[in-house]
């Protein structure tokens, strides 16, 4: 299948575009917010959002069939100083100085290294947070905006109250030592969830506003309920109506822009010819007629865009193109309302199927045209950037935004939910390979063989998607976690994946289109990955071995345990005790962060999209969503920890070949090796011994590496892994989120295994200081799974995986291992075997490691190369060196 011309051009433009931050949205938001200091907080925020949506520039790029964007720029984003302003206020002087020194146009066409990342300033473009380019002339306004939010941003307010937690200083040391990666309340308070498009699709904005009007009249002055939240309903409906009006204005501005461009396109025909014309190079003798045809097509498309935007600004969509345009803009609006990564469209093949089915039947659209629109959608979604701090965007997200589309699964009646539109979604994932949206198959035994083979074909192209998630595991997890909030088996069938791999609660809605009723799925829960993010397990073990002291920061992070760690049981007890101390303080401080967020920065637009906010008149912060038990504890580096515990148990406590002191000394001295930073490589490949090293740790390092390792169906490590998982999954439930609901375990690494590995000393499993941890949660540490893929799967499933929100298994296959039609079947069989054993998730990199090494050496020649990192696919050139090294080092299966 060949990519359509429009998508090809838009995708080519993406590869030539820099991530760019601008200020129109924060400017208008802040200006209106400051005018309304007398207003009820939620209405004040709604007015600020309305003002921002009404005023932001509405660029329409050439060749677009779907329009819209976060800002005026192709890969545009913007800071939200009302959430966190400290980064800019702390650097105000430095930024202003850089802006003053910015050069004029001479070298403005230079691009920063790393694909579209602006990692260095150039010309009049300043690098912000190591990724985004911003015009130098905007910097004074950036500083002014940031300073205006000083002391009143969510972060500033939250920190003030966090400090009242008695163990706050401990929390500071935990963050400083990077045992925990980041504060979710100040960085990405929403996301890792599935959006719901039902209300705008079914009712349209005019009717939703009418609903708000009616409800305002019904609830005004009526307390109802608990005497507090009942009165809040009025303000929620006022706020919802206000934001909806802003969204309408935004859509209409696109219509206005399309009509303006259509007008100027007609007028500029002659001027264009003077320039040589857009088509003059390709059309030799008849350039004028070619130009006329192209121009009339352009004008027709722009007029169509204007018609669509004017329609969906008021009414529910009637066609597939209108519906796709609408859900894309709904998505962007939610992302502009708050700092979000991992807002997943969910099962859009099922959501949009009614429009697809009826348009195809009526001859209004062909499958080729649907595919073209889906390809354009892929490019638009790939253009989404998330503005957050360097540590979060680079260290955690690798620049990815995790917009996950799920296919398959079950319908409300328990039958396969696959459909023809989902097949086209998979096909366009192959014809238009881009990082977004990533795809996930909700694997169920009821899905057809043909459908599954098509998904396997897609994996074989090397794009890293779709991932495969065990639908039954996901439902089991949901029923356990959300059963107390009323989730039924039928509702659990609506499950989808939020973010890269966060199993998310969803629901069903009846959508009526032209007299026919369809049951469509959509999100129904709060962000499912907020809370304690991420705990570096090997770093916790390091603290245990060093009596609570962090060698890197030189600080006593936790109170000394003063245990001799005389036997393995004692070591395990202290490990659990330290871990629980860390979780305890982080949960308390995190609850304060999110509480301040829900009071000051509550979601309004996102709230009205999800059940049952519009019905009951409550926003997310008042438990307006149907499911609220969504907070979690995320961990990283489990497999290195298990391998390290196995080494300690075997070498120190059972064989007694080494004392704990001897091992500790070897670890502190990095087994005689240079640090990863000094070696310039962050995997175990190509590490170098120090020139002055005398060989004293050779034997102990050899023994540590040869000690039992996870991933080989070895009972020794598998029993430790089971012990760990049973403790971890149960321990998380002992803590309560701010919604007074139990937390759960979330076991994905995203990219934290790189950043947190960098700050961790050598570990008892033989891993060297500063090198990246094993990825995911059940992937083997690179090179240690020597018994083949089925042995790895046996180890991975030694515990009951639905006790956790997820698990994550990455496999790297050499393309020749799954060659041809037989290879496709083989790939499906491996996947099926793992999921039948109880695996939650598996995904594949189908790539030759030599290609990756070449790409690392010559990044400019591999701009389009994509790899699967943890739960996401990313462009090779846009991921950090530690993660690149880790992906290269992963065990490559030549045969399966």
């Amino acid at each position, binding site marked *: 299948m060949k990519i359509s011309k429009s998508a090809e051009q838009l995708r080519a433009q993406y590869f030539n575009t*820099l991530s760019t931050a601008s200020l*129109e949205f924060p*400017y208008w938001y802040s200006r209106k917010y400051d005018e309304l200091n007398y207003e009820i907080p939620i209405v004040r925020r709604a007015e600020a959002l309305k003002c921002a949506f009404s005023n932001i*520039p509405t660029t329409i790029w050439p060749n677009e069939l779907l329009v819209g964007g976060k800002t*005026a*720029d192709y890969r545009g984003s913007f800071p939200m100083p009302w959430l966190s302003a400290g980064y800019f206020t702390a650097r105000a002087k430095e930024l202003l100085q850089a802006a003053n020194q910015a050069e004029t*146009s001479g070298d403005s066409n230079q691009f920063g290294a790393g694909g579209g990342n602006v990692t260095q300033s150039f010309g009049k473009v300043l690098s912000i947070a190591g990724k985004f380019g911003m015009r130098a002339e*905007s910097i004074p306004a950036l500083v002014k905006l940031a300073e205006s939010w000083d002391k009143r941003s969510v972060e500033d307010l939250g920190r003030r109250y966090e400090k009242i937690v008695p163990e706050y200083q401990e929390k500071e040391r935990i963050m400083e030592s990077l045992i925990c990666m980041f504060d979710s309340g100040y960085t990405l308070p929403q996301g890792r969830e599935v959006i719901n498009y039902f209300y705008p699709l079914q009712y349209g904005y005019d009717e939703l506003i009418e609903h708000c009007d009616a409800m305002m009249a019904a609830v005004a002055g009526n307390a109802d309920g608990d005497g507090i939240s009942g009165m809040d309903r009025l303000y929620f409906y006022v706020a919802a109506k206000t934001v909806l009006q802003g969204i309408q204005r935004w859509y209409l501005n696109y219509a206005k822009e399309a009509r303006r461009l259509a007008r100027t396109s007609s007028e500029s025909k002659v001027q264009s010819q003077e320039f*040589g014309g857009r088509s003059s190079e390709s059309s030799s003798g008849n350039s004028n007629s070619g130009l006329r045809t192209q121009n009339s097509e352009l004008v027709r498309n722009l007029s169509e865009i204007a018609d669509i935007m004017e329609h969906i600004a008021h009414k529910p969509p009637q066609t597939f193109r209108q519906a796709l345009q609408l859900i894309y803009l709904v998505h962007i609006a939610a992302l502009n309302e708050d700092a979000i990564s991992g807002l997943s469209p969910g099962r859009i093949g099922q959501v949009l199927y009614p429009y697809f089915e009826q348009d195809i039947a009526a001859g209004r659209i062909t499958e080729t045209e649907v595919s073209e629109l889906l390809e354009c959608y892929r490019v638009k979604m790939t253009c989404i950037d998330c503005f957050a701090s360097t540590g979060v965007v680079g260290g955690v997200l690798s620049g990815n935004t995790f917009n996950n589309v799920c296919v398959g699964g079950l319908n409300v009646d328990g039958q396969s939910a696959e459909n023809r539109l989902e097949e086209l979604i998979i096909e366009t994932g192959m014809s238009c390979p881009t990082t977004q949206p990533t795809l996930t198959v909700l694997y169920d035994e009821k899905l057809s063989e043909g459908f599954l083979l098509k998904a396997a074909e897609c994996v074989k192209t090397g794009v890293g998607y779709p991932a495969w998630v065990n639908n039954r595991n996901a439902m089991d997890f949901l029923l356990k976690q959300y059963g107390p909030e009323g989730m039924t088996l039928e509702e659990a069938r609506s499950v989808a994946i939020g973010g890269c791999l966060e199993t998310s609660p969803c629901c069903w809605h009846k959508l009526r289109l032209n007299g026919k009723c369809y049951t469509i799925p959509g999100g129904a829960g709060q962000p499912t990955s907020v809370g304690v993010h991420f705990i570096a397990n090997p770093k916790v073990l390091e603290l245990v071995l060093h009596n609570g002291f962090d060698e890197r920061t030189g600080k006593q992070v936790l109170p000394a345990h003063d245990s001799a760690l005389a036997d393995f049981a004692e070591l395990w007890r202290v490990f659990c005790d330290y871990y629980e101390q860390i979780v305890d303080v982080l949960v308390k401080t995190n609850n304060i962060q999110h509480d301040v967020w829900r009071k000051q920065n509550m979601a309004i637009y996102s709230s009205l999209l999800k059940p049952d906010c519009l019905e009951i008149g409550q926003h997310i912060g008042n438990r307006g969503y149907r499911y609220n038990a969504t907070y979690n504890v995320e961990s990283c580096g489990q497999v290195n920890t298990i391998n390290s515990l196995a080494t300690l148990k075997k070498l120190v406590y059972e064989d007694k070949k080494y004392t704990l002191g001897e091992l500790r000394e070897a670890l502190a001295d990095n087994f005689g090796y240079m640090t990863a930073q000094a070696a310039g490589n962050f995997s175990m490949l190509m590490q170098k011994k120090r020139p002055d090293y005398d060989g004293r740790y050779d034997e102990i390092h050899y023994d540590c590496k040869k000690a039992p390792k996870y991933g080989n169906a070895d009972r020794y490590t598998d029993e430790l892994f089971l012990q760990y998982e049973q403790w971890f999954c149960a321990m998380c439930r002992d803590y309560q989120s701010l919604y007074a609901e139990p937390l759960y375990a979330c076991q994905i690494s995203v990219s934290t295994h790189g950043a947190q590995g960098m700050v961790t000393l050598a570990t008892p499993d033989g891993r060297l200081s500063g090198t990246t941890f094993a990825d995911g949660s059940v992937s083997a540490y690179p090179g240690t799974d020597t018994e083949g893929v089925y042995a790895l799967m046996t180890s991975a499933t030694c515990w009951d995986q639905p006790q956790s929100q997820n698990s994550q298994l990455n496999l790297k296959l050499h393309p020749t291992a799954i060659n041809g039609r037989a290879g496709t079947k083989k790939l499906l069989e491996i996947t099926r075997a793992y999921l039948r054993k109880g695996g939650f998730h598996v995904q594949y990199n189908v790539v030759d490691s030599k290609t990756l090494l070449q790409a690392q050496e010559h990044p400019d020649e591999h701009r389009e190369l994509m790899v699967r990192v943890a739960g996401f696919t990313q462009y090779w050139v846009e991921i950090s060196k530690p993660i690149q090294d880790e992906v290269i080092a992963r065990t490559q299966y030549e045969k399966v």
Partner: protein
Amino acid sequence: MRIHGLCDNFISIDAAKGSCGISGQLVPFDGEGCGYFQAAPHCLNCKHFNNVTTTELGECSGFGAVAWVYPTMRARNCASYQPLAASR
């Protein structure tokens, strides 16, 4: 300033460049505009914009109370935008 980035025909792509609505070619933001240059609706081209200060910010009087604003803000969708007779 008659640079591409401040021209009404400039379709912004990123901080460094855009597409020219007339020629269809990529043009650098800071490159010198051509004979078809037309000032885009940025705040600096609005009647309500005044008082550029030493910090390169100005003031907007388009909505009653005066508020600070920055000159290069794109203002095509601003309800109070009123173009100056000639571009600056």
